[in-house]
């Protein structure tokens, strides 16, 4: 098997092919010297999969009886060492009673599988006092930071300020759901009426990241159905915004594009429970082994270490 | 003449415009081409070289003034124009209406002898009057039907006696075509009874000896669709006029219907009508056929000798 071919970025002969075709909408002519093997050598995909340590930084558990065992089974299948889980708050208005109940589910799971699951809590800044108390309760129960914060309040709303300040003190990664105006929710903010109005959008992340340059922000799921080109271009100048690559869309070239615009240090591997796409889109990107390892594991773990929560 | 050249002889004069350096940091893989630019070409000489009959023209007292027609014709070397004063869409097209219109066409022919070939407007819903009008107009020197409009579909039985008379006279039958199928459905503002490409096929197959002219594929129809539908009906000419001089339209039509069935026309869009023929990938002989010979042959059958 030709391993080198797979892992080397920009294998010779590729560069020329990539540029020319889109101009005409037709294919570029055959490169002068193309491979003339009778058949391609076989490729050991599972060996490649298992080569990398992985933390899935965006996953969820459910209220169903098979959770989290089903999620863990996917993890084992694909060599995912740890998953950062949360039970996101997909209810309105999201009262303290509700978020406590949601977090209890997560606490139960991480207690049961302490080696495989990392817990993320949810809260609702409309209830400031209760949210701050919940941070304490969950941290004491061993959670590593917020899980996917949801659509009750925009991430740059002043209601979030005390919460974010607390999370900064605790050196936690601030992870929030978001949707892009060019995509989910309708084109160019012409919201189609099926979305919660306080859902965070990329511009809200930029706003809050500028206000708190010391905050570490995790923009959720660039593969979830928003316009990832728009998102990456917008975040280019804001080094404290990281993107997780989760979502059910495994668009070809998404990872390459994100690395080009954000650099290899600002991407996290994640599935949002689309495990195959999560692993597949990173392995198929034109990245070196080292770059893949950073995205699969190191980038996130290095940030965890800052808060003394590293996993190795 | 070289297919790929606008004109055979080009004059090269002086140095070209040097734009090098516009692109900062441009790295070149190749040395400069021998092309120096600034080749002033005798465009008008080439344009005027070809004899032309505009197979789709109009004349009336308002929108399509005969003098404007002739001014453009002189400018672009169009020898003759096949004019009509067509029955307007959404009007009933009663006999006194089309008679008045045809009389104006006859007057234009008289005012400018040798320049206009008048074609007859009629409405087959008025059978007797239409057949009589053919005779009256023929006596006054007109030839062929045109531009027939949307009062009756071309394959409607009402047209049969009219078409049969035209077969006897070897007359060309030119009919309007719709803005159709572009957005899957027919354009909404199209009048009822508009003739579709499919209707032309059906009537052309019923009367293989009749001479039809499908109007203006550059006039707003999906010309790829039209050419594909009309591919196998040899007695339908495809006339290329219209305000859309889409690049590639004539080349596409050549592939589907061929050089013997394409005819030049302007429909009052003179620049586009002439320009697109010179822009297409045609030989000298093919240009001659499209500009002149194909339609001249048909006219000759009807007794109009333009040579």
């Amino acid at each position: 098997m030709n391993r080198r071919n797979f892992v080397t970025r920009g294998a010779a002969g590729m560069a020329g092919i990539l540029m020319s075709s889109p101009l005409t909408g037709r294919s570029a002519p055959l490169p002068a010297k193309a491979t003339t093997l009778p058949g391609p050598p076989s490729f050991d995909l599972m060996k490649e999969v298992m080569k990398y340590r992985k933390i899935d930084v965006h996953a969820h558990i459910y209220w169903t009886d098979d959770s989290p065992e089903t999620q863990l089974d996917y993890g084992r299948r694909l060599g995912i060492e740890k998953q950062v889980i949360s039970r996101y708050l997909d209810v309105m208005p999201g009262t303290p009673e509700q978020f406590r109940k949601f977090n209890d589910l997560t606490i139960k799971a991480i207690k049961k599988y302490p080696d495989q699951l990392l817990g993320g809590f949810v809260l609702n800044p409309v209830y400031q006092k209760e949210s701050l108390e919940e941070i304490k309760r969950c941290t004491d129960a061993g959670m590593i930071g917020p899980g996917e914060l949801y659509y009750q309040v925009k991430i740059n709303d002043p209601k979030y300020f005390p919460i974010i300040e607390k999370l900064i003190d605790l050196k936690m990664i601030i992870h929030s759901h978001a949707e892009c105006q060019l995509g989910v929710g309708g084109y160019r903010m012409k919201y189609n009426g099926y979305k919660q109005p306080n859902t965070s959008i990329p511009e809200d992340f930029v706003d809050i990241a500028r206000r708190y340059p010391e905050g570490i922000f995790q923009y959720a799921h660039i593969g979830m159905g928003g316009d990832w080109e728009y998102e990456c271009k917008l975040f280019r100048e804001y080094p404290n915004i990281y993107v997780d690559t989760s979502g059910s869309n495994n668009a070809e070239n998404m990872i390459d594009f994100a690395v080009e615009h954000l650099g290899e240090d600002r991407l996290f591997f994640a599935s949002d429970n689309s495990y195959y796409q999560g692993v597949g889109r990173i392995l198929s990107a034109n990245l070196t082994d080292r770059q893949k390892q950073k995205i699969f594991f190191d980038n996130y773990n290095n940030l965890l270490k800052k808060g003394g929560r590293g996993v190795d | 003449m070289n297919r790929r050249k606008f004109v055979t002889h080009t004059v090269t004069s002086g140095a070209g415009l040097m734009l090098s350096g516009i692109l900062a940091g441009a790295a070149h893989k190749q040395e400069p081409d021998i092309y120096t630019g600034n080749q002033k070409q005798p465009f008008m000489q080439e344009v005027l070289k070809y004899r032309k009959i505009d197979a789709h023209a109009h004349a009336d007292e308002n929108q399509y003034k005969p003098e404007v027609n002739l001014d453009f014709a002189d400018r672009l070397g169009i020898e003759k124009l096949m004019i009509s004063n067509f029955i307007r869409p959404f009007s009933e097209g009663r006999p006194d209406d089309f008679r008045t219109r045809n009389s104006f066409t006859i007057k234009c022919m008289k005012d400018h002898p040798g320049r206009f070939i008048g074609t007859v407007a009629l409405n087959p819903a008025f059978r007797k009057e239409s057949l009589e009008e053919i005779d009256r107009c023929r006596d006054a020197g007109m030839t062929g039907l045109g531009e027939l409009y949307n009062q009756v579909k071309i394959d409607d039985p009402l047209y049969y006696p009219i078409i049969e008379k035209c077969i006897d006279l070897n007359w060309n039958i030119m009919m309007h075509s719709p803005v159709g199928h572009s957005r899957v459905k027919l354009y909404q503002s199209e009048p009822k009874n508009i003739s579709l490409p499919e209707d032309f096929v059906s009537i052309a197959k019923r009367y293989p000896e009749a001479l039809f002219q499908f109007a203006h594929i550059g006039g707003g129809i999906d010309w790829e669709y039209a050419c594909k539908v009309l591919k196998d009906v040899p007695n339908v000419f495809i006339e290329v006029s219209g305000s859309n001089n889409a690049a590639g339209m004539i080349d596409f039509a050549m592939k589907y219907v061929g050089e013997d069935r394409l005819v030049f026309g302007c429909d009052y869009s003179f620049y586009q009508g002439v320009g697109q023929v010179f822009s297409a990938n045609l030989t000298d002989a093919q240009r001659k056929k499209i500009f002149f010979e194909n339609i001249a042959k048909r006219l000759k059958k009807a007794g109009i000798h333009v040579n």
Partner: protein
Amino acid sequence: MLIDINAYVGHWPFMQLKYNNCAALVERMNKYGVETSVISNLNGIFYKNTQSANRELYDELKALGTHRKRFIPFAVINPTYAGWQYDLEECVKKFGMKGVRVYPKYHDYEITDPALVELVKRTRDMNLPVAFNYKMVDSRQRSWMDIDYVAYTPKPEWTLKNIFPIIKAVPDAKYMILNVTNSMQLDAADAALFKKAQVLMDTSGRTINDLDSLLKTQGTERFAFGTHAPILDYLTGMLRIESLRPAEADARVKELLRSGNAKQFLGL
């Protein structure tokens, strides 16, 4: 051996694609051990006259020399556009195309349109498969100029229910159902009919996450490796097969998924 039953070349208007020509795709195939790819031209989805796209693909393959045999070209046909019968003949007889791809949503006709029924019957009589897909791209991040079947709205993306009527109308044709990204639910009677039909589904779609169960409920002969490349990444469709455990799929079944089912279905 791997056969990819769902790949493309050509242009996607709303986004720059990489690896979207045959030469680049060959490199991709060599890198990941894929022997053969079924391809069609994306341009056929948008050109009103789809035959321009089929001709482009034919010309490109002709220019490809020995690599040509690495590809199995499919034609894009719009049965509501003039001359399609002639186009189909030309694609099959002159261009050597081995199947047909149709795009009812992009070409704006119903799944039960008589023209489509006629097309499917013709392909059946030529023993060629006709391929449908759930969608080309995720509607949530589409361009506003793209079609407006949008998830979570009153006009949602397709599910198997939207494709099924044509299978019901012509039950003895060969169908490929690609990029399975939404529900595969059918009511009981339809599900039974669907199970009897000759259907091959590819592994590129996000609904194929529990392939183990699908093999049990649908049967091992109904799935085959597909990438939906270059729109989706090259490896996820493969990963769904390769990561099956021996208890879920033995070596024989894996080989069926990698290439056996495709060979059988396409008559290779």
